[in-house]
């Protein structure tokens, strides 16, 4: 295809560039600014080079919150992806059940994140919350505000409740797009239900599942509002994931330099994982 060269066309890019500059580039540059300098206010800055980066990379506190973050993300992916697929498989394929299920499934996704946190906080309160009270009445010693295990359990349960629907909806869309001939052929070939799942459904769902995993990875890796409202990062620092820890450092302690360095590192981890994931996905795509 012959492309026409018209440098004036760049003017059309200006509005987008201005918008992106204001909502992304300029704030990011501010963070970069803080990450390499020390400030005592009044717009006085001193150059610190890579000192904050070294400090963060070596800090045990950062290692701990990064570890917690990865653990949390892996646990919820491990639960939500298989659970989402399983629910999608059992959803009705035609009739009135379809819209009913789709609407019910979408409900948790429509609730504002801080409301989700607040709901679960009240729901799980050991003395008056339905969940907390019932668990205690059943003989479990449950208190998510004081026990680390309970805090994690509640946070994970909340995230599973909030986000599994996304995986369900994506998987369901993937399943519905499989041609009936595949099922008919499998039936004639005498394939078992398990073989149909592993040889037809899973391979055909590959694309939507990749998207689902990518979205769930990013969202859970950047999670802030829900655990902040539910546990506030506690007890102690037990559920202080990266974002929570970052906000504590930046706004609680006002350590702007290290906080800026930490946000950049955080940003690069997310970017790196997404890039690796995307490249792998595209490479598989080319192969087939």
């Amino acid at each position: 295809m012959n492309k026409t060269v018209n440098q004036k066309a760049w003017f059309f890019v200006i509005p987008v560039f201005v918008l992106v500059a204001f909502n992304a580039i300029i704030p990011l540059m501010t963070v970069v600014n803080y990450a390499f300098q020390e400030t005592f206010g009044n717009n006085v800055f001193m150059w610190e080079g890579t000192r904050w980066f070294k400090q963060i990379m070596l800090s045990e506190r950062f290692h701990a919150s990064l570890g917690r973050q990865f653990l949390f993300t892996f646990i919820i992916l491990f639960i939500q992806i298989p659970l989402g697929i399983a629910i999608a498989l059992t959803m009705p394929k035609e009739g009135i059940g379809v819209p009913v299920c789709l609407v019910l499934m979408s409900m948790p996704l429509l609730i504002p994140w801080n409301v989700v946190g607040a709901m679960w906080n009240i729901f799980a309160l050991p003395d008056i919350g339905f969940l907390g009270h019932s668990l205690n009445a059943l003989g479990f010693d449950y208190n998510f505000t004081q026990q680390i295990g309970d805090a994690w359990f509640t946070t994970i349960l909340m995230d599973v409740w909030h986000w599994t629907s996304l995986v369900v909806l994506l998987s369901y869309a993937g399943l519905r797009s499989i041609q009936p001939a595949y099922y008919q052929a499998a039936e004639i070939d005498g394939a078992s239900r398990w073989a149909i799942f592993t040889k037809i459904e899973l391979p055909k769902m590959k694309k939507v599942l990749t998207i689902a995993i990518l979205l769930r990875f990013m969202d859970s890796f950047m999670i802030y509002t829900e655990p902040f409202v539910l546990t506030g990062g506690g007890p102690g620092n037990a559920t202080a994931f990266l974002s929570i820890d970052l906000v504590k450092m930046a706004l609680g302690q006002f350590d702007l330099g290290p906080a800026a360095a930490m946000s950049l590192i955080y940003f690069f981890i997310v970017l790196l994982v997404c890039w690796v994931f995307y490249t792998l996905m595209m490479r598989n795509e080319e192969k087939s």
Partner: protein
Amino acid sequence: MAKVTLKGLSHSYLKTQSSDADWAIREVDIDWNDGGAYALLGPSGCGKTTLLNIISGLITPTKGDILFDDKIISGLSPVERNIAQIFQFPVIYDTMKVYDNLAFPLRNRKIPEEEIKVKVHEIAEMLELSSTLNNRASGLTADGKQKISLGRGLVRSDVNAIMFDEPLTVIDPHLKWILRSKLKELHQKINRTMIYVTHDQTEALTFADQVVVMHEGQIVQTGTPVDLFEKPKHTFVGYFIGSPGMNVLPCQIKGNDVIVNGKKVETHQQIKKNNFNKTEVGVRPEFISFSNEGIPVKVLSVSNTGRHKIVDTESESGKIKIIAKSNEDIPSGSAFLKFKKEYTYTYGDSWIIE
């Protein structure tokens, strides 16, 4: 291998049926011999795929019975019926190699690996897939994939029948021809009942010994390719088969005489009764010639296909196509047509009068 019999088969996709149009299949009776090659021919939406899926057990018919070797099998699943079916679009298992794709139906039936190996290699040889056995199936071209689908259908040696649902739709024309002859060859080699659904008359006529022509959910004629060509039992068969199709002209019946455009026409049959709403005369373009007397027409155009000439003419009661030899002189302006008596039929309400 089995004889396939359908008795009073009707199917509707609707819960309640009020008119004929609500039925996808209406009152179909078929007797197919063991080891025959049959084709179901008809335009899109005539019910041929529905009929095929009923035979294979993917659809349960609303009414009627299916028998294999005189045993009713209507309630059985596709696996229990032990049939193979090849679909319009290639169905392959993406993640498996070509070999595993072909072995899949056998493995599901717990056949020992050594036996599978022999079978798969035999089929791969026949379909010229041997060199790609270790490739991933998803990397193949459309016709390679369709060969795998065919292979999975043919790999089991004990199937009662093999069904083909327009299997060559996605294949390039020249490969189509090769695969079609391959299927014919396979049929002679393995001698199994094969049922082939298509809307392509060439495919049906070259593949099958017996062709079943369907129209709006009904069987309009069953017969050899020659029968269908020389004696269409329904005007639909007349113009669906043949290129160009049969000329169908309105006519009047007076006593024993058939009158077209005021001229008496000799037809194959003796007319004994005349209680139809609509009567027509049908004659194929191959069986019409120019003459000094007969039906007066105006010659509209002549197109030369190389092998023969197709002449478009217009008579008082409609257009008539004629196939003439390529060296024949075609009169211009007005002319007269003569129909060959043996191949000219009278139809009452679209069905042949006998």
